[in-house]
């Protein structure tokens, strides 16, 4: 599997200079980020693990992106989310005089700063650093393995590359995550996006998340009636293992000021 990924990565990255030469002449006027822009959205997901607990997540996310010259851009993003595990899936319902079934909650907050170089006609390469914290509240005993308490800090680094080919975008992201006092986690995700419409994107993704195969599909759309300011996305992803984890994602994002079609937003604003 690793050799497959290397081949795919190499193939995707090899397309960048080729595409650059083809399209550079025609699109020289376009900048990496056309204008500083902000987006704020609500995110929700429901994750279900076979024969174990399921949990629902609801959160808030925001991002600001700004140009740095013609070729570069930077973004600062932050998010907060809360997940609630449905312990009723594993704690049978017992008639209780004095006790109730305990619940399990996770709170996550993180911030990430990214810098990137982009040619809107070719693609983008990016580097990111993020810092997060996740806390848990599960009954009277809930600890993170690496810290031994109910809180864990996270640092992560991410390198990504995207190639724009007509109505397709191919991407590869490598993420190195370092949980507090824990072992480093490496993951690679590859994606292919297709714009059947200028305001509709279908993304397929696959990769390894800590040695576990993952697949996902997501549809993102900017309805015209909101003046291209609102984006909605619905996705489903799977972590493929004996106890398969299926996750449904849904998000609604409002883009302040920039009323552009989705494809344009992805390649010239985000």
């Amino acid at each position: 599997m690793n050799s497959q990924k290397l081949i795919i990565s190499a193939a995707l990255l090899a397309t960048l200079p080729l595409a650059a030469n083809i399209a550079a002449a025609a699109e020289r006027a376009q900048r990496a980020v056309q204008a500083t822009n902000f987006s704020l959205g609500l995110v929700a997901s429901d994750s279900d693990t076979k024969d174990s607990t399921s949990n629902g997540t609801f959160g808030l996310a925001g991002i600001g992106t700004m140009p740095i010259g013609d070729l570069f851009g930077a973004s600062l993003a932050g998010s907060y989310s809360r997940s609630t595990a449905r312990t009723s899936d594993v704690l049978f319902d017992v008639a209780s005089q004095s006790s109730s079934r305990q619940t399990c909650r996770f709170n996550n907050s993180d911030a990430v700063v990214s810098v990137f170089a982009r040619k809107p006609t070719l693609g983008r390469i990016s580097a990111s650093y993020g810092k997060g914290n996740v806390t848990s509240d599960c009954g009277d005993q809930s600890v993170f393995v690496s810290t031994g308490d109910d809180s864990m800090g996270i640092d992560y680094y991410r390198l990504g590359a995207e190639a724009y080919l007509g109505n397709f975008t191919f991407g590869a992201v490598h993420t190195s995550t370092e949980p507090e006092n824990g072992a480093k986690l490496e993951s690679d995700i590859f994606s292919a996006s297709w714009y059947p419409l200028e305001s509709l994107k279908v993304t397929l993704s696959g990769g390894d998340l800590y040695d576990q195969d993952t697949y996902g599909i997501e549809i993102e759309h900017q309805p015209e009636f909101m003046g291209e300011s609102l984006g909605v996305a619905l996705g489903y992803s799977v972590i493929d293992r004996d106890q398969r984890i299926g996750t449904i994602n849904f998000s609604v994002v409002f883009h302040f000021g920039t009323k552009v079609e989705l494809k344009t937003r992805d390649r010239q604003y985000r």
Partner: protein
Amino acid sequence: MRLFLGEKVHYLPGARRVAGFLLFGLLAGCGGGGGGDSATQTQISTNAISFSASGPSAAAPAAQSVTATFGKDVVQLSVVHSGDAIASVSSVMNGQTAEITIVPATPSAIGPGAFVGAVAVTGYNCADTTCSRLAAGSTATVSVSYQISPSVLSVAPYVVTSGVSDTVIVRGLGLLAFNISGVRFGDTAATAFTVNSNGTELSATYPALPAGDYTVHLDATGHTGEIPSSVALKVRDPVAYTAAALDHAPGTTALRTLVYDAERQALITVTDTAPTNPIVRYQYANGAWSAPTQAAVGLLDAALSADGSQLFAINQTAVMPVDPVTLAPGTSIAAPSLAENSFLKNIVVGNDNRSLLTTSLTTSGLTQGYVYDPPSGVIAPNGIGLNNATPVMSANGAGAVLSQGDPTLTSDVPVYLYSTTSNQLTSSAVSLRQNGVVPALNRSITRVVLNGIRVYDGSFALLGTLPDTTAAVVLKSDGTRAYAYDTAAGGILVYDISVDRDEAAYTALGPVQPLAADPGTGLRMAITPDNGTLFVAGSTRLLVQPTPAL
């Protein structure tokens, strides 16, 4: 056709469609078979544990531990539990294992019964590349079962007569927590039993049994193992006491208490004897009554505990345990908040071993009584003001009748009933002013005699009357006979009170049974459980008299 509001559908070039499928196939090819499953697994050393406690007052069973082993990709381990069986759960991490300790609930906190619980151990993994979301890995569940046995507290009366079938009250806790399917006295099954609605007592009928001590056993479906019990029904052969006169100590001016200890064949009195009121014991052995032993501890009344293991006695302000054989007093417990100029007057003990205390003034007036709980040592006011009330407890300890008032009152005052089940006093429909004759009631309170004159049934319906020359009265255990000391007749008269005389006077059965000597004044009477012997005690002496065979 529109996919989304305001969106136009465009035709796809065929080449792009093909490219899309190829891309999908390429990504799907990344799959390597889902390796690394063990890295997310959580396993546990056992999936079921059980606890048991011998009763609701038993100590909590020792906590039990299980070991959880989890994979290297687990970043967070949660341990949650549910169910009354579990008080708390704790865990200690050590590398890729966690020692999970499950603490059962305290039996007194949840009471008797079969309880369940569950502990779920879930290892959570990062659900995305930056670990901003967690997703559950596998969950290992431990089911917990916890049996807290019902407890058998007492049987009343605890001394019964051999060769005779009758009914006793077995007190306990949690008798409804399991389905009681049978009651046994030793190995002999009860012929009938019923459990009361709050599961604190059952009424069981035993067959005729030979003399001996019989442990009271409860059988219950759904209960694993024998329900613990150390409560014994003591079955004794009738004792043929001959008539005798036992003199009080010199200087005795009045008798306050007369108790017959059927287990040990002894009589216990409390008398007004200068310089301080002694408690006196007469032991019967080898066909004769021994010389009395006594302890001068200044008492006003005494009663045997529900299992006869001790006496509860009172002085003017406190309750104290007294050894029923040696008469050695224990540590006294003061009654709280006694009204000014009031003092403790009488004590009776129910089959729950709690004592009902009445209080008195030197003059006419209302003072509230108390309930004394020996295990906790608490004497609590019962909130009911009574006027110099005199209680008498039934032989089965199920309840007491209290008459009150004095001749100075110009109107009658209610007779009260005390329920051992609820430890509450309620007024009856009968009112009177008590005289010097204490109430008499039979073993299961189907007959009550008040003021030595009025005969009632268990619902306090007046059945008939006895002569007003009755100075003391005691009833046969089944309530069919009243044995009255009649001052005019100078001896014992027997009345058939099983019949309803429509409030008319009862006629004595047979001739008067004279006593061996004059008992004096202020009489108290007692009867043996086999109904074969009467005891009449007064200010002068204590008389033993075989019951007239009428």
